[in-house]
């Protein structure tokens, strides 16, 4: 899949708006400033995925995109395990950072994912004038790449590359780091292009 520069810019802007809302919701939860990177938009060959998705043990919270677009692909929040422990501690007022992941961390990961991704999809769907809703979340705490394989198997059964938006969010106190990914499937990608082209028309 070749991404032309206009599509790439439009998709990055689209992701940017979603990620900004997700960052705001994370910031409100943490009651501290959250920085975000400019979203990257990449068309990645599935064979190259391991060069982009790390092998670090992470909490990977996955939502299928539903709503007006049925089974449109996936949005994912991936946070390293240290971050999850920090977030749980922050919310429970505990301080122990040198411990195993427990059930409370799993709930925290899911809840944080829920809030961030709802904000992400709300904002992007509003931009496009459609309804996009997250499915109930699924959670894996494992090597991030291993978790992503299942997602890629769903979106890339007939194609050999996946479109990935990626934004990184960081906060200094508490030290928190996470990434938001969106992997639209082929149909949603085409729809996004069409809708974004329509948005840009009056300017052309």
């Amino acid at each position: 899949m070749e991404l032309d520069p206009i599509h790439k810019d439009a998709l990055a802007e689209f992701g940017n708006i979603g990620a900004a809302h997700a960052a705001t919701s994370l910031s409100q939860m943490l009651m501290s400033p959250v920085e975000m990177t400019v979203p990257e938009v990449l068309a990645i060959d599935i064979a190259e995925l391991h060069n982009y998705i790390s092998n670090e043990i992470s909490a990977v919270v996955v939502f299928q995109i539903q709503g007006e677009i049925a089974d449109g692909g996936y949005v994912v929040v991936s946070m390293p395990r240290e971050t999850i422990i920090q977030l749980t501690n922050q919310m429970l007022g505990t301080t122990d950072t040198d411990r195993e992941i427990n059930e409370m961390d799993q709930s925290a990961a899911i809840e944080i994912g829920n809030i961030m991704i709802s904000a992400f999809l709300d904002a992007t769907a509003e931009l496009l004038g459609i309804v996009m809703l997250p499915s109930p979340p699924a959670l894996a705490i494992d090597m991030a790449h291993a978790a992503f394989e299942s997602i890629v198997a769903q979106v890339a059964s007939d194609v050999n590359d996946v479109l990935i938006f990626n934004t990184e969010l960081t906060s200094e106190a508490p030290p928190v780091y996470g990434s938001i990914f969106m992997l639209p499937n082929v149909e949603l990608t085409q729809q996004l292009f069409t809708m974004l082209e329509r948005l840009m028309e009056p300017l052309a």
Partner: protein
Amino acid sequence: MENNFFDEEAGVILGLGELRVGAYPMGTIGLGSCIALILHDQRRSLAGLAHIMLPESRGNTERPGKFADTAMSVLLEEMENLGSVKCSTTAIVVGGASMFEFSASSLNIGDRNIAAVKDQLHEQRIGIEYEETGGKVGRSVYYWPEGKGRLIVKRADGTCIAL
């Protein structure tokens, strides 16, 4: 990316849907629902590895390594081209985990992958020498085809097995 087992050697890490046949070390990192299928011909110190993503190709031949059925036939064909015979070939099957909790079952494709790979092996009458499939844990696989072959499976929870 982390590649600590092949540091000093010309090891090849295979991405999703790739397959290779050769006498050099091969591996996959961060295996989740996918399967690492290794065919090994001990007599020729030759091995083939496929990083299989889905059970059926449904006529798609572009990336044979991606699907259980096409991966099996292409691996065998390439090994035969290098002088390998089926009766001295054995298989190692690793992966096919169900990674997600609280999940829509569509994400847990691991079980279907395992079944498809085993069906293929049965059909080709190739015996399974070692198998580590299913479960809920991601794995990395490293294989050295020399002699009897050497295998390391490193699980995400930190445990490691070597054969």
